[in-house]
């Protein structure tokens, strides 16, 4: 699934030239009958096809070296140096099993050769480069989103190179070095007949070649690329498919994006690394807001509190949080508190011999992971797990363990969801009432944060309109004062979305005789569609848990309650299959 090779092509007055490729063709490792010039299109064809790679990247890389042997350098330069009308756009070409992705870039202004007055050497004619293309070769069964990401990287590198070329002819200079090295090798090969890869010789001489090699190596290992083109311009990129992996599953970028668009101010940000480690990874010119956020964040603070503590706008918090999540440095959870109920994630690795188990024991000496995980076999609240009979220091220790387990995707949090389902009437055929349950009828009230987080480009300006939840999303505040006609009318309106039968049943409930209770019930009616958990209702309506639970108990004959994970943030603990 990952990339497999990196090539730079340039096209100019001297025709098309392959400047550099990595990995090299390891000609020396083949039987002596093969030289760099010979093509053997059938060599190891069977080894190439049918290698079903699950996660063995080294096997994967090797596979592609064989495949690329089918393409000589000359042919690569022909097919990958495109016409100028393909420039500035995504370039995608598939040949048999190999897919090439790139972003051909035009260099409009031919480089001006600076001649210093004191330099006595004669003017040398530099090749005029018209366009260049940084191409990645991938396996064809790569997910389309992987291909998009690789194109993104190619484009970023191209932008940086184009900039540096215009500023100081960086690309021309590097190209010259590459071509010179290639010429050198060709002469050497002709003389003593030993085949060598010219590209290997380029590495020590050429910074750009080393950068490209580094990009390739990083992509294959961590999925995070950080280059400094010409030691000046930074190109940073991450491949979400490599970063967001839980076991053998990866979180598809679209799912990640959907999740981030749906987070609410009552969610919290959980950093996956220590504050110190994270801060040390930030570039020197990173935004101070990011630093403030990292320093003030905590697993127990929700995003709204974080905004207040870090003295940043909620909008900014959302953006920075999304950025950290995208780069695999944080996840979204519900803030830690007493009443949180946790259970083992179905994807948790509970093996005795897993690296996680060892890790855990190093972190928490004297405890073993499987035993602690066993405690979460049944849903247990944080309060129960903590065991208040223990010393406070012990309690804090146990909280730390829960945080560790959340960071390592071992636990899911369960929330309670409520659904209004009235018993069908005796007289009418049952179907009529089941026809359109409340959920389908009460349409249109969007209770999620209407954010438009643009994904993957942290510097783009996002058009986000955030409404304060306590204003728009909570239902209209009803005036206190029991039975006032205004209140009565409002209650009636709210109950109007119900069918006659439903209304009757509800009004017959003993608790409905109390106008306060009925009013509260009517007010919360739109939450009872099974999509809003108790914590959300509490946050939006500014209610205490005990209040809410009492109400639900009073009206239990028409409500069905169930517990499961919050689908919005559950992808961080158990990716969808």
């Amino acid at each position: 699934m990952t990339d497999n090779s990196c090539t730079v092509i340039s096209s100019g007055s001297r025709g098309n030239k392959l400047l550099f490729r990595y990995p090299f063709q390891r000609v020396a490792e083949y039987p002596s009958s093969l030289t760099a010039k010979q093509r053997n299109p059938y060599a190891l064809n069977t080894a190439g096809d049918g290698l079903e790679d699950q996660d063995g990247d080294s096997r994967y890389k090797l596979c592609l070296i064989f495949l690329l042997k089918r393409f000589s350098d000359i042919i690569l330069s022909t097919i990958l140096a495109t016409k100028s009308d393909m420039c500035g756009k995504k370039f995608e070409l598939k040949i048999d099993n190999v897919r090439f992705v790139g972003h051909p870039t035009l260099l409009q202004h031919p480089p001006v050769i600076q001649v210093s007055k004191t330099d006595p050497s004669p003017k040398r004619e530099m090749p005029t480069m018209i366009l260049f293309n940084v191409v990645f070769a991938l396996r064809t069964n790569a997910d389309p989103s992987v291909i998009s990401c690789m194109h993104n990287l190619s484009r970023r590198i191209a932008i940086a190179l184009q900039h540096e070329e215009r500023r100081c002819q960086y690309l021309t200079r590097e190209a010259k070095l590459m071509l010179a090295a290639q010429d050198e090798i060709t002469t050497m090969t002709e003389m003593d007949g030993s085949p060598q890869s010219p590209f290997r010789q380029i590495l020590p001489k050429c910074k750009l070649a080393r950068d490209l090699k580094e990009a390739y190596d990083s992509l294959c290992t961590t999925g995070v690329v950080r280059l400094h083109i010409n030691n000046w311009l930074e190109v940073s990129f991450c491949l979400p498919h490599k970063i967001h992996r839980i076991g053998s599953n990866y979180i598809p970028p679209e799912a990640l994006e959907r999740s981030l668009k749906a987070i609410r101010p009552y969610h919290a940000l959980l950093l996956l690394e220590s504050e110190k480690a994270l801060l040390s990874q930030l570039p020197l010119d990173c935004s101070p807001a990011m630093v403030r956020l990292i320093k003030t964040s905590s697993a127990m603070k929700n995003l709204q509190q974080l905004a207040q503590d870090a003295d940043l706008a909620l909008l900014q918090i959302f953006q920075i949080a999304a950025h950290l999540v995208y780069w695999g440095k944080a996840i979204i959870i519900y803030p830690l508190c007493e009443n949180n109920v946790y259970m083992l994630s179905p994807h948790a690795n509970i093996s005795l011999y897993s690296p996680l188990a060892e890790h855990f024991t190093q972190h928490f000496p004297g405890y073993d992971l499987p035993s602690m995980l066993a405690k979460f076999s049944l849903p247990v609240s944080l309060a129960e797990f903590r065991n208040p009979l223990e010393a406070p220091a012990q309690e804090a220790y146990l909280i730390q363990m829960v945080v560790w387990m959340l960071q390592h995707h071992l636990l899911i949090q369960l929330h309670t969801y409520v659904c209004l389902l009235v018993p069908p009437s005796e007289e009418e055929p049952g179907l009529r009432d089941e026809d359109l349950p409340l959920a389908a009828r009460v349409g249109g009230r969007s209770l999620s944060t209407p954010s438009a987080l643009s994904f993957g480009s942290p510097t783009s300006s996002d058009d986000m309109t955030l409404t304060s939840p306590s204003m728009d999303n909570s239902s209209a505040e009803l005036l206190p004062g029991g039975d006032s006609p205004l209140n009565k009318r409002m209650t009636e309106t709210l109950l109007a979305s119900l069918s006659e039968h439903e209304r009757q049943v509800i009004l017959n409930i003993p608790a409905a005789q109390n106008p306060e209770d009925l009013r509260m019930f009517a007010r919360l009616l739109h939450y009872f569609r099974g999509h809003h958990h108790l914590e959300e209702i509490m946050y939006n309506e500014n209610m205490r848990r005990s209040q809410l639970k009492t109400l639900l108990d009073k009206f239990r004959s028409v409500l069905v309650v169930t517990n499961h994970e919050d689908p919005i943030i559950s992808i961080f603990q158990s990716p969808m299959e």
Partner: protein
Amino acid sequence: MTIRFRMNSRIECIFFSEFHPTLGPKITYQVPEEYISRELFDTVQVYIITKPELQNKLITVTAMGKKLIGCPVCIEHKKYSRNALLFNLGLVCDAQTNTCALEPIVKKLSGYLTTLELESGFISKEESKHKLLPIMSTLLEELNATGACTLPIDESNTIHLKLIQLRKDPPIVQEYDVPVFTQCKDHFIKSQWDLTTQQILPYIDGFRHIQKISAEADVELNLVRIAVQNLLYYGVVTLVSIFQYSNVYCTTPKVQSLIDDKSIQEECLNYVTKQGHKRASLRDVFQLYCGLSPGTTVRDLCSRYSLQLQNVDERRLIQFGLMKSLIRRLQKYPVKVIRDERSRPPRLYTGCHSYDEICCKTGITYKELDERLENDSNIVICWK
């Protein structure tokens, strides 16, 4: 069972391109006419009529919002001007289309044309070359409509083409998995399938697990696994876990779809209602699903919700819930956490093997396993 055809990749255009001795690379025919602009062809011609190294390879190039898939052919012979005939019959789709399924078609077409040319000079002779145009029209129409095309070209040659939809690799089937038909078993056309599948078919009832099917149908275990995996690939069956009254399940967020989605509702109520009884009510069924939670066995559910279960078959309830991912099974995993240095490392009690698996592999029952492990203080049980 008829596998329903779904057209995901619409072909916008079919073109025939060749290297003209004087004019160079050009498009000789295209259906519909004028689809590929002069500009587009200029940009991509190097990938259509190619250098020798790229001949006979499937080449897909994306440009100007279109994807062109072709396979350049070169036939060398003295009789041709320039000693070689170069041509390429390709397809054009929208750039966003997933064209993997079309590739074998293009490859096959290039093979057909090569054969026709070698046998009777089909392409190099002007009279027969004209026939290409109506052939291409028919291909375009039929492939888009039904995904298949059978077209006689001349007395001895007929083109047979079929679009095969590529599917995701199916998971490995374990001996403790239970296959269940996703659609009515009556729609299954036995004769279309291989002998092994035909033999195990009567034993797939949504309750028998692989090991049992193997024993009762008298087919070797691995053959059964492969046959079921094949059925999985085509979406004919899906896998659920063994049903026992001691099983524990819990709801997933998807359970709400029973309320939101009318079609799933209908399907569910039809599926779970006891034979010959009044149709179960949504409320009862939903309450039953919501009654499933960690710590509650199916037996507990039956005693707590006996009223709701009057019209509901609990086994089919669970089956449906698992098939549609409304609920999931909580499996037990024993882990031996304390052991002294001298004893052997645990083989099965490592947290990687569920009770289902252990019982299947060792032949002991759940009850026996429970008794053994409950009294062992070195072992913890994890549910997930």
